[in-house]
């Protein structure tokens, strides 16, 4: 066994390769191919990109998603990390109770979360009636989901379902910090806030970057939430609110797979640029040293 000159680690990766190729790389190349060809398979240069960019729904959809993603990422970074730091160092039982409460909504991702929030946002049935009326000034469901509110509402729904999982991850990451490090800082006279910001925060930086990358990716992919709100609001929210929805409409309503692929490639490009920036700016790959 030991004498075999197999490169170390390669056999462990092998089962993963077919999945990566068939469901990751091949479809990506195929999407690129579709984006640069026309319906009959001929090379189309950037025609599909220009065409979809000129679509009257294109710019609004990307604007929506940009605002939504920014709001959501800001909420995630500030609140998730903040709550994880607040939880870390609490008595175990208190902390685990809070973590459980924060996480619970995570079970309601996707369609389930939208269904719940459809009710939460309707001032007539919502337990948050008071807030809707006095903060949003909404007495009707149609006013709660007024176009200007939507990016914030979707960000809030996403935060509500997703934050708990990340809090658990951050909390776990904080637990990897050796205890004596913290102890040493305390003996040196650092306050809990200083310890949190100067010691703990840099040590979980990688996890924060990780959260931001993944959330950025899922953020630009937003689909189910606006889709179901569109259905349930009887069209008050357009069915092309997010770029993904537009791509879906192009593919399935108009059978324009090439246009749909072009939008998908736009999203991919944005995702890659975002990931590149975050990776290079935060040194995510530092584990390689």
């Amino acid at each position, binding site marked *: 066994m030991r004498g075999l000159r197999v490169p170390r680690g390669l056999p462990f990766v092998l089962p993963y390769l077919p999945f990566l190729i068939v469901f990751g790389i091949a479809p990506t190349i195929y999407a690129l191919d579709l984006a640069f060809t026309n319906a009959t398979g001929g090379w189309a240069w950037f025609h599909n990109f220009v065409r979809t960019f000129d*679509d*009257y*729904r294109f710019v609004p959809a990307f604007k929506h998603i940009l605002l939504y993603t920014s709001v959501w990422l800001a909420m995630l970074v500030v609140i998730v990390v903040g709550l994880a730091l607040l939880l870390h160092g609490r008595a175990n039982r208190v902390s685990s109770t809070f973590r459980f409460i924060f996480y619970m909504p995570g079970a309601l991702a996707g369609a389930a979360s939208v269904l719940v929030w459809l009710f939460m946002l*309707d*001032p*007539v*049935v919502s337990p948050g009636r008071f807030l809707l009326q006095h903060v949003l000034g909404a*007495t*009707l*469901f*149609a*006013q709660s989901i*007024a*176009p200007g509110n939507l990016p914030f509402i979707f960000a809030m729904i996403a935060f509500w379902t997703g934050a708990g999982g990340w809090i658990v991850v951050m909390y776990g990451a904080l637990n990897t910090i050796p205890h004596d490090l913290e102890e040493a800082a305390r003996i040196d006279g650092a306050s809990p806030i200083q310890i949190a910001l100067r010691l703990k925060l840099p040590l979980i930086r990688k996890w924060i970057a990780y959260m931001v990358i993944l959330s950025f990716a899922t953020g630009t992919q937003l689909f189910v939430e606006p889709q179901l709100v*569109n*259905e349930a*609001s*009887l*069209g*008050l*929210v*357009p*069915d092309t609110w997010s770029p993904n929805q537009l791509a*879906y*409409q192009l593919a*399935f*309503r*108009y*059978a324009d797979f090439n246009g749909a692929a072009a939008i998908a490639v736009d999203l991919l490009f944005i995702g890659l640029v975002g990931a590149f920036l975050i990776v290079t700016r935060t040194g995510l790959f530092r584990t390689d040293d």
Partner: protein
Amino acid sequence: MKINRRAFALVALVAAIAASLVSATAGGAARHAGVSGSLTVWVDSVRLPAAKLYAKTHPNVKLHIVTFDGDGNGATTLQAKIQLWNRTGNGWPDVIFSEQVNDPVWMASKPFDYAANLEGGVFPEKIINQIPKPSIAQCTVNGHLVCVQDNLAPEVLYYNKKLMTQFGYQVPTTWQQWAQIGDDVAKNHPGYIIGTVGDSYGHWLYLWADQCPLSTLKSANTVLINASDPHCTRMASLLDPLIANKSVSDVTVFSPDFAKQYGGDADKVLMMPGPAWYALAVFRDTLKLPAGEWTATTPLRWGTEPVVTGQVGGGPWIISKHTKNMAAAVDFVQWNVAGAKLNTKVANYSAIAPGLPSYTPAATAWLNWLGKDPFFASPPGAAIGKAANQIWQGWGLVTYPDQPVWSNSVVTQLVAGKSLSSLLPALGQGLSQAAQAAGYKVVSK
């Protein structure tokens, strides 16, 4: 090829006639000898009881029922699935019911190309002849009949007889009289309403009914959209003061807020323009208004102009051009349209025939049955039955859904306090964009 098709049509015709004879003589519970084989049908959950009854009464047909979302609310379920089947080259259901009245338009066009042509005796002429003209017109795409509507949804004026008498109002016959009552209600009976524009189909109730050209087909690929036409602006000007004085609501009848404010014991709905299916589904079951107060009258007209009205819904049956069992497919649709809805004595008739049947003899039976419901102060049937022939045919069905455009360019702004008149240009623009995106040429006259 040609000969084959003709022979096939002939066979189908013979089978269909045989089937119709059997169902005509024996009603819903016949043991059919005419059709057999297997049949896959896609229906929404509302149509399920009827489909199951068909399976029970037609043991020779191996019926596979699939329920789906019905393609409601401008969903793309059926577009996506038909593309899937077109790509795999199999799996098409033989018959589909859709909640979207415009679905047959794209189903009969490329690239979907799903709907079978029902002309030339494929579907029995004697049934088609008993369906109101506007309904047949809507199922005619590019000159071919490609669907049969399950139910019709013409708009009429519903009113609360008790309250109208109590307040001393005459039942209006024109939009102007209706608006006048609205003004008076706002002054003397604040809190009561004479209608709502907040529904996702408000434009069908008010703009379609006043012949506003927002979806007028000039040819198969050219649509006339002109929101500044007097037929649109005059209706908007009529409605705006009423919306402002709150005698016309801007909330959908399906919202909990509406039910709370106007429904139940509050009993604050004086009148309401609405489609045939409102009769029980909205007034009795959704708003839970007290029994013995309601009835309907002919649709409102503009001044002395002839009566025309709008429509909300009317789901069609579509048969697949790929079906290998046309005889059974036709039989199934025919039974749903003309057979099952005739017999009002059947145990769960309200589930078998939830809306005004398109087949006139069944419609007559249904309206009689409706009139006997204790919910009504007097039978609303006459007005509803007549309205089915008064739907304005200038509103053509197109491949794209127009409701989302109305909802998102008008309803969201109405609740924010804008006037309908000021929103008409945005509505016209939104519809033009949707039409162009769907490949239509848009003209303004």
